[in-house]
């Protein structure tokens, strides 16, 4: 008993000491050092950011989604033009689109932190913002694992490591589940994933859509060194894909026309078996937690037989 009581007193004393010490450190710390920390971002730069960022501008739709997933939207001061998920994000102030950012609007929002993506946001904008004393932290999600890392990093920036860890664990578990689902399939269907209509553009090996296709038990027929290779119509037909997935930005008649166009080439397995699918692009091209949803959707599209459908 006495041992336990002593322990408890000891622990309390320790806590009090810590609090006092912390308070003392805050009082003694010079103004410039108070409330900021230095972090290294994915461009390898040291960035000094506030301990508690209160006015965050998300420079890409994926960043907006991550901040909302972390339930830190109260910190958001601005988002980019196509930040449409969740719907509440559309009501936040806009700072241009993520490739064509509006410097002036960003500055006018008085942000204390901007979160950028390395591929997408032009480097010159990041440099200009840093010149204007606005800290920019760049993440670099290039595959599923680095998307998860981006979530964890942003979680750390916004002091919500626990929530970030939960999301990361959930994403990892769901990816693992998909891997198990497709481990048993004998045949990997050939998938042509079309992200551009004219010219016809697909995805090479260095993209996360490629990784999603391969993880979902498909074979990306456009794999290769070129990140976003272009194709002619006869090249696609020659590749004899089993599944064609066309991603679209919006519900539009154009995509149905493209689908009908592919369906004419009956010696292509995808056309013969009626496996040409138009899908909203957001689940596949945004490196956010929803990417796992995209992966789960892809498994259903590539291996319908696993879910009781006909192959």
């Amino acid at each position, binding site marked *: 008993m006495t041992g336990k009581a002593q322990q408890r007193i000891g622990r309390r004393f320790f806590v009090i000491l810590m609090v006092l010490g912390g308070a003392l450190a805050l009082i003694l710390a010079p103004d410039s050092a108070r409330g900021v920390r230095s972090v290294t971002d994915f461009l390898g730069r040291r960035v000094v950011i506030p301990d508690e960022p209160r006015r965050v501008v998300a420079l890409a739709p994926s960043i907006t989604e991550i901040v909302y997933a972390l339930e830190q939207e109260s910190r958001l001061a601005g988002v980019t033009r196509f930040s449409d998920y969740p719907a509440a994000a559309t009501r936040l102030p806009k700072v*241009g689109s993520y*490739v064509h950012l509006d410097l*002036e*609007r960003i500055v*006018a929002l008085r942000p204390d932190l901007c979160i950028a993506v390395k591929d997408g946001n*032009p480097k010159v904008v990041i440099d*200009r913002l840093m010149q204007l004393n606005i800290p920019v932290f760049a993440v670099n999600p290039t595959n599923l694992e680095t998307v998860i890392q981006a979530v964890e990093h942003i979680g750390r920036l916004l002091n919500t490591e626990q929530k970030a860890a939960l999301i990361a664990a959930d994403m990892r578990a769901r990816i693992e589940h998909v891997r198990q689902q497709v481990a048993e399939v004998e045949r990997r269907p050939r998938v042509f994933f079309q992200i551009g209509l004219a010219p016809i553009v697909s995805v090479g090996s260095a993209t996360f859509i490629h990784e999603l296709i391969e993880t979902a038990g498909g074979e990306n027929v456009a794999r290769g060194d070129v*990140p976003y290779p272009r194709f002619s119509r006869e090249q696609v037909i020659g590749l004899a894909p089993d599944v064609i997935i066309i991603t679209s930005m919006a519900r539009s008649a154009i995509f149905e026309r493209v689908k009908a166009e592919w369906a004419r080439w009956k010696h292509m397995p995808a056309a013969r078996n009626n496996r040409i699918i138009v899908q909203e692009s957001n689940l596949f091209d945004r490196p956010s937690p929803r990417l796992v949803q995209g992966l789960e959707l892809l498994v259903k599209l590539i291996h319908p037989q696993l879910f009781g459908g006909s192959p």
Partner: protein
Amino acid sequence: MTAPLHATLKRLWIVSAVLLVFFVLTMLAGLCAGSSDTGVRRVISVLVGGEAADPMLATIIWRIRLPRVLLAAMVGAALSMGGLVFQALLRNPLAEPYILGISGGAAIGAIIGILMGFARFPGVGLMAFVGSMATLALLLLMTSGRSVLKKDSLLLSGVMVNAFCSALIMFLVSITQDARLHNIIFWLMGDMGMTDLRQAGFLALILAPCFVLFFWLSNAMNLLTMGSETALAIGINVKAVSLVLLTATSLMISAAVSHSGLIGFVGLVMPHLLRLVLGPDHRVLVPASILGGGGYMVLCDLLARTLPRQGEMPAGVVTALIGAPLFIYLLKRTKS
């Protein structure tokens, strides 16, 4: 030209003063307008009261809008001067760096520079200069020895060089598949939003000596417009003067293009308007083109960033919408 020197000087001062007022007013308008909603009154309070009045707005005005307005002014002045020199030298009222393909040549050089990973200054600028000199040489080679058809053949050759340059640009853009593509396309469309003061300073360092040179040679330009025989008879070294003028112009154009992308017709609109009002004396036209062209470009850029409800449009769109119809009108008038 027959007017006595002191009369010319007086005219020069008056014209410069009037255009300087126009120029300063456009600069102020450029500083007042922007994508963030800041009222004119607040802008004035910062301009008058200094940074303390509103630090955030001060940052926007001095570090985002000012570099952009300065860049637009310098690009406009350079392009407008380029038009004036070409029109005098080639004795063709429709000559203009964009229509002749000189800007296109500079753009090709700049794109190659960007693809090779050079810095904006001096690498890309130097490549642009090489490109513009190459197209200029090509153009002069194509039109030499055909004095009878010179007026039309020069323009036609220029249009062809320009078409060829556009095709080459499309080719370079279509073989580029990575992130540099966005850079190239935005730069080509004339995106001046990301300029900082350092870049504007570099451009000024190149343009200022050119402007001085043109002013110094403005009387020679007057004589050249009367024809090379007359100029020779008066004692002008036509070849040397032409070479210096052409090189300086193409340096100036390539510097402007490597900063602002392809912006056309500025060199047509401003010199014509000024000649209409001020007459043909280049001693007055050179400073007038610099101030007038600068102000005109600032206005076009202002329209480009305030007309669309969201985002911006390239400044080159505005200048072409104004300039192309004028070109057609002038072409019709010179024919009849």
